[in-house]
């Protein structure tokens, strides 16, 4: 399935790492991810003494060789998960040129995530939002779903304003089964509302990751001369000399980022800053490795 949003360099790395559910999720099938239910499944947990009637396939013969005692290996039952990919399609995501456009970057990330999830036989769902849900593709673990996701991504244009917080709360109320939630957005909404939404999701037991997509300009504010900033989401303009207010702007942005990050840390939400000037595989790989390491602990 050729697509501009599936880049081999990104996919290969992501595929290798895979996406593991860090917390115990509920799944329909027996997959790779932890299930709260124990049984004879793949992941060994502990030994117990053989009792007549146990399946002799699970006898630890090596242990018998060492101790001349019959013991049975017990396993955790592994299940698959559903990954909800929430993509911010608001007008503010329009910023950036082709190479560093936030929405394109976010689409790339969304596509990659959906592909990796489905490849490892988990389900992926795509939700695109602005001020409200614009697109809601149901979760599916088939590759055809990936195609659908890709096709949908290609047709998404930035419009509308941003209203993340309430939408996250809606999602939390709607999706009862625990799963993964990937939020890909520039998070240009009130911090309190966003954190409230995240908190709600976490309360429902979801494994939440925020991919905070920002253009370098939005952080560093490198403009010079006389600039008229035209609002992308609302009809407003601000005329200024950016170099005069740069320090103040950077302070404001850093304060916002700190607050958001602190909030995410408090609710054990993974926070990944995505700089559209940096190739996507770097932060994504780092994120996946971190998840992997966290999962083995």
């Amino acid at each position, binding site marked *: 399935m050729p697509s501009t949003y599936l880049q081999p360099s990104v996919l290969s790395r992501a595929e290798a790492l895979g996406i593991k559910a860090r917390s115990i999720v509920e799944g329909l099938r027996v997959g790779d991810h932890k299930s709260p239910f124990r049984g004879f499944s793949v992941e060994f947990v502990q030994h117990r003494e053989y009792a007549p009637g146990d399946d002799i396939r699970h006898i630890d013969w090596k242990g018998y060789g060492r101790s001349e005692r019959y013991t049975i290996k017990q396993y955790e039952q592994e299940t698959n998960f559903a990954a909800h990919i929430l993509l911010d399609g608001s*007008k*503010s*995501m*329009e*910023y950036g040129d082709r190479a560093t456009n*936030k929405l394109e970057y976010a689409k790339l990330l969304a596509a990659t995530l959906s592909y990796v999830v489905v490849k490892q036989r988990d389900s992926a769902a795509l939700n695109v939002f602005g001020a409200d849900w614009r697109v809601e593709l149901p979760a599916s673990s088939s590759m055809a779903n990936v195609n659908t996701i890709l096709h949908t991504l290609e047709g998404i244009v930035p419009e509308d304003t941003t209203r993340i917080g309430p939408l996250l709360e809606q999602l939390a109320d709607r999706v009862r089964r625990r799963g993964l939630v990937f939020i890909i957005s*520039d998070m*240009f909404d009130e911090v309190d509302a966003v954190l409230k939404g995240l908190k709600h999701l976490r309360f429902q037991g979801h494994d939440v990751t925020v991919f905070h997509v920002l253009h370098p300009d*939005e952080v560093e504010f490198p*403009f010079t*001369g*006389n*600039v*008229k*900033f*035209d*609002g*992308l*989401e*609302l009809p*407003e303009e*601000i*005329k*200024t*000399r950016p*170099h*005069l*207010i740069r320090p*103040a*702007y950077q*302070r*404001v*942005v850093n304060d*916002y980022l700190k607050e958001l990050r602190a909030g995410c840390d408090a609710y054990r939400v993974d926070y990944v800053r995505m700089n559209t000037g940096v190739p996507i595989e770097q932060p994504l790989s780092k994120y996946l490795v971190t998840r992997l390491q966290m999962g083995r602990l």
Partner: protein
Amino acid sequence: MGFLAPLMLIGGAAAGIPLALHFFYRARYRPVPWGAMKFLRLAVEQTSRRLQFQELVLLLLRIFLMMLLAVALARPVTCSKVTAGKRGEAVDAVFVTDLSYSMNAREGAKTRLDLAKEAALKIIDELPANSTVQVITCTDRAVAAGPKSPRNLDQARLLIKNLQATQQSTDFLPGLTEAVAALGRAEGSAKEVYLFSDLQRGGWERESSAVRLKCDEIRAQGALFLVRCGTQAVRNVAVVDLKPQTDIPHTGSRMPFTVLVKNTGTEPVTGLTVTLKVDGQPLDKDAQPIEKIAPGETKPVTLTGKIDQAGWRVLTAEVKPDQLDDDNKFDRAILVREKVRILIVDGSPNERDPEKAGSYFLAHALLPVPDEFKFLYHVRPTVVKAADASPGLLSDKEACILVNAPLGGPGSVPADFVQRLGEFVKDGHGLMITAGPNVEKGVYNRLLGPGGSGLLPMELGDAFEAPKDAPLFPDPASIDEKSFLARFRLSANDPFLQLRDAYVMKAVGVVEPKAEQLKDSGRVLMRYNDGRPALLGKQGGDGEVLFLTTAVDKDWGFFATNLTFQPFVHGAMTHLIERSAAGFNRVAGEPIRWTPKDLNKSYQVTRPDGSRARLGKPQGGATEQLALTVSDTTRAGVYTISEEGREVGTKFAVIPDLRESETMDPLPDQQIDELLGFKPEHLTSGDETTTKAETVRSRNEWTVTALLALLLFAVFETALAWFCGKAW
């Protein structure tokens, strides 16, 4: 504060440019679509007040810069009056040139006046275009010398080159007063007064308070430059007096003349020679050497000579040339007589015992020759009793002596005679009064005091006696060096001049006047050793009165019998009689006024340099006697007034104003500053004169300062604008 180019102040309107730009300039903005508007909005809100303040500061700074530029281009100057300034940086200069005779002092090959001229010409050459110059000459009076058109600098240069020093003394007040008037006539705003002088002490101290006020007036209008012309100390000996010594000038016998020579310099002078001439011809024994004379010392020199012809003669005493020639010569006009008639009014005659008569010793002092030679002697005293004195006796007399004469009561001097005495003195004759028992203080004070004829020098008091073991004597130290008695003080070894040996047992007391009464009073010419007055003097009209407070007989002491009596009497008579020559002896600057016998003829004056000027006929007002007047006596020497076309005439002697020689030491800059109460610009004639004048001129101009300030503020504005991101 003033401006040399005030029209440039109009440029201050450019201060509105930054203001207009601030309000009306619309900058071009580059549009950028932006998503993070809430961050931007917050950042703008946080910085808006600071940015507005910075903008305001920059705006004000730019307005100030524009105004400062306009001020700088208008060329500000520190002067009190701002006028139209049509002549830009042109200067109105007033040159006050000291022409007193100290300016003739030589320093090297040049005189101080030469140095002054050089400095003045240099300054003229360096004046900015369109400048004006007014030249004022100054001695103890000032003359606005020109030029007619102050803008004609060539005329000013010519005037300066032709300046000649006079024999007058220095007083800066008239010159500075004239300078203030000249500044008032100047049109521009840049005014400068230059005083070219050796800046000697006398010029400053004569009227120091008024000089200070005038300098303040000058400073209020412009700059004051003191150009010191001459810096070296001058070796100078001056002839300060010449007079017949103890004898009235007469024909037929050798007469002594005293020449006073003073070292007015700062170094001793040795090997001097004093010469004496009569009418330009040397006398016998005409040269007298002075081995050494210390700084400040005055030495009398006696020269004798015989004059064979009676009439007005001019004596000339001279010393050899030194660094200042103007005071090396002293001329004096004297009337040489064949006979000198003196009337003695004796208030205590004694025919039985002539030695006891009051006039005995006096008559012998006046005729110090044996009887057989008395007829030949030039002095003819006539002795009369007091009661016999009549006004007619005074008609042919040169002087009168009242000896112990009673003025009231039996045997007293008649009233008409006393009245005539007043006119006698006023006409230029001399009167001497000696004390005695007949001199009653009440009568004398009433008749001869201020309420009477006014002849008495001071109010008389009670007579007093000295203790027998401590008699009084005249104190030579009390004698003024300049008085006719000077030789009694200066000649310590002459036995005929030892006043200390002339004991006095009794004398008349004197009530010395208070300070406010000094103006109409006489003066004390000599005191006794106890400080009480011994000899008083008072001028009356053209004559003079002397009052001796002791008697000239033996009753009151030994004054008349002492060796000093004869030279004292002769000196007193000479002094009194010589006063009649006062009109023929003037000081440089004083006019000569003379009434010839023939009032219908026209006359001319021949000056010392040989030039002649027509005087015309004698002139006078309704109450004034007809007379000829010569006003221009700035040069010392002999002036001859004669009928037009004739060479021979009446001679008049004009001497330098010797106050100049007395105060020749220059006043240092620091003392001048203290006297003036501020620091004028001190220059010295020479190469640096113009440089320093230009420096002062540019110091008064604040253009460079304003431009530097402009540069500084411009740099500051640039830095601030860069910091604020608002650089143009």
